[in-house]
């Protein structure tokens, strides 16, 4: 009995399991109800945004356009950018204030957005500039070169000093220092004396051309501040000179 009971219990269990298995199997085979026969929804209308950063630039600078879209298959930015992807950014450098329009087109229609980049007008070009005093000095003030051991104004130094004198006369507020320089061959001390005489000769010549003496001071550097340090005649010639420096 006990056995039987047990056995029947066991059978029941088996049956229950089998039923459960079958039941599941059966459930799978149940055909779902057919979907309701309804119309396909219309495609979504695209959306699109467009921003410029910064919105105001100076001429020649650039601004970054950034856009985002949904449901679009084709996007393009005008003017000047053209077809773009669904999202992105690009730099634009408009020369004038510009309103950019992005047009998004998709199955659901089209949409557009705009943003404006204003370009500040450049300052009016400066009127053709008068050369500065320094530029005129550099153009018109010319040094005098000397022969070896000599402090006499050479023939080729006369036009140079005339140009210098014209500048000084045209600019009465300008003061000049005349530096006397020498090449390396003489002694330090002798060259200081020779340089002094060269500077004095240049000053005297300018005075003779009508430049007031009190606008010019002289200094001899001898061979202490050479323009050129090679040991040949072309270099020595560079160093034998009366050199002008603006003193104010």
């Amino acid at each position, binding site marked *: 009995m006990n056995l039987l009971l047990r056995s029947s219990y066991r059978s029941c269990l088996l049956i229950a399991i089998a039923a459960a298995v079958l039941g599941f199997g059966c459930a799978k085979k149940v055909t779902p109800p057919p979907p309701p026969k309804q119309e396909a929804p219309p495609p979504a209308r695209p959306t699109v945004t467009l921003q410029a950063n910064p919105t105001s630039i100076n001429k020649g600078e650039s601004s970054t356009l950034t856009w985002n879209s949904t449901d679009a298959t084709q996007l393009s930015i005008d003017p000047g950018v053209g077809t773009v992807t669904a999202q992105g950014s690009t730099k634009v450098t408009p020369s004038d204030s510009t309103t950019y329009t992005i047009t998004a087109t998709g199955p659901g229609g089209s949409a557009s957005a705009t943003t404006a980049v204003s370009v500040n007008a450049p300052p009016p070009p400066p009127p053709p500039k008068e050369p500065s005093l320094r530029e005129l000095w550099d153009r018109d003030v010319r040094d005098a070169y000397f022969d070896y*051991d000599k402090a006499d104004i050479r023939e080729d130094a006369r036009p140079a000093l005339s140009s210098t004198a014209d500048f000084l006369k045209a600019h009465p507020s300008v003061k000049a*220092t005349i530096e006397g320089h020498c090449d390396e061959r*003489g*002694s*330090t*001390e*002798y060259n*200081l*004396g*020779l*340089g*002094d*005489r060269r500077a*004095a000769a240049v000053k005297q010549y300018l005075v003779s051309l009508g430049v007031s003496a009190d606008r010019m*001071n*002289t*200094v*001899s*550097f001898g061979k*202490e*501040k050479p323009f050129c340090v090679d040991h040949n005649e072309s270099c020595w010639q560079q160093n034998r000179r009366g050199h002008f420096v603006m*003193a104010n």
Partner: protein
Amino acid sequence: MLKPVRCLELLFFLAVLLSSCGSASAQDRIRMGTGLGQTKIRVALADFGPRYDSAKTHASLFTQVVRDDLQFSGILELASPSFYPTQVPTVPGELKAPAWIAAPTNATYVGFGNLTESTSEVTIQAWLFDVRNPSSPPVVGKVYRGGPTDLQVRKFAHEFADEIISKLTGGLPSVASTQIAFVRSTSPGVKEIWGMDYDGANQHQLTNLRSIAITPRWSPDASRIAFTCYEPYKGLVSAQICMYSLDTSKLIAFPRFPGTNITPAWSPDGTQIIFSSSMQGNPELYVCDVNCNRPKRLTQSSGANMSPSWNPKTGQTIAFVSDRGGTPQLYLVNVDGTGVTKIDMPDKGYVIDPAWSPNGQMLAFSWRRPNDNYDLYIMDPASQQLLELTRDQGRNERPSWAPDGRHLVFESTRSGERQIWTMLADGSQAHQLTTGGHNESPNWSTH
């Protein structure tokens, strides 16, 4: 018994003159020996004994510096230390005179002594004995005490050498304690005045103007250095005379003048300055007191006049450079401005950098012969006899006499860059003092 050699200096100059009395045609290059060989006194200087190991370094430094000084003097003969007796005295009781008289040392005089050193002091006992008269008292007996530094030990060594040279030569000035001022450039456009011991040790910067400082000249008492400077004033730069005090290590006020003011030199008594100035137009020589109130014009010419050297003996004559004749040449002028005389040379060329010898009889200078380099010469202006000191060794300029009248310091490019050298006044024993940077314009202190 001492053997004073007062006559040595005279002998030397006699030798200079005699050797140049030959046919001094323009092409001649005259050379001479030292002229002192036979009369040199032979001195040995034993290694100074360190009392403790702590004094070892300074004992050998002291010994070396004294030996160098004696050797340099050119007037004594230093017996070679490798021949000395093995037993070295450190106090008089240890002196074995016969061993030093004997060959190969053959010494007439022997110097020796000892050093004791603590962390705060070095004590040096130093003697010089006449070994041929060993019973007589020491010729020199000195005790030196001071800080245990190399600088101090060097100073004592120079003082001991000075004593030896002074005693053995009957009072000829020694140079061992003298200083040399010079110009060093370590960057372009900057030259400063430096000082150093006569042997090149202890090189130290004096000025710090960061501009151009050149042509230093010691005052006769060695308390000041006059030089050419480029101190800006009210925005303008010009060459001016500057004065540096060794006592305060600072510049002393000196008046500024218009124009270019260069190449100061001292009167022998140190009360006056002579310099070149273009304050009235042309670069001429001016004389004033050390405060330079009311400078007085000395020369009058159409050329540039500079580089004065005041005769240190007579105080009456000034040698200087002038290009009034076209190229720079040597001239003499009396202190009152009279008697301007050109010194004639046997050939053309540049003649610059005159420097009177301490006895006021000779001029050292630099002469660039046509198609040649600058070389140093000595001339007796009275006889116009000429002695060539350098030849084919680069550019040699700006001689300055040592107070012993037997040495010159000068600048030379013989080793490449311009450097400071010393030599005997006959051109021998050239010795380079500076190496770093670009060094020029040496001037030897008068004591």
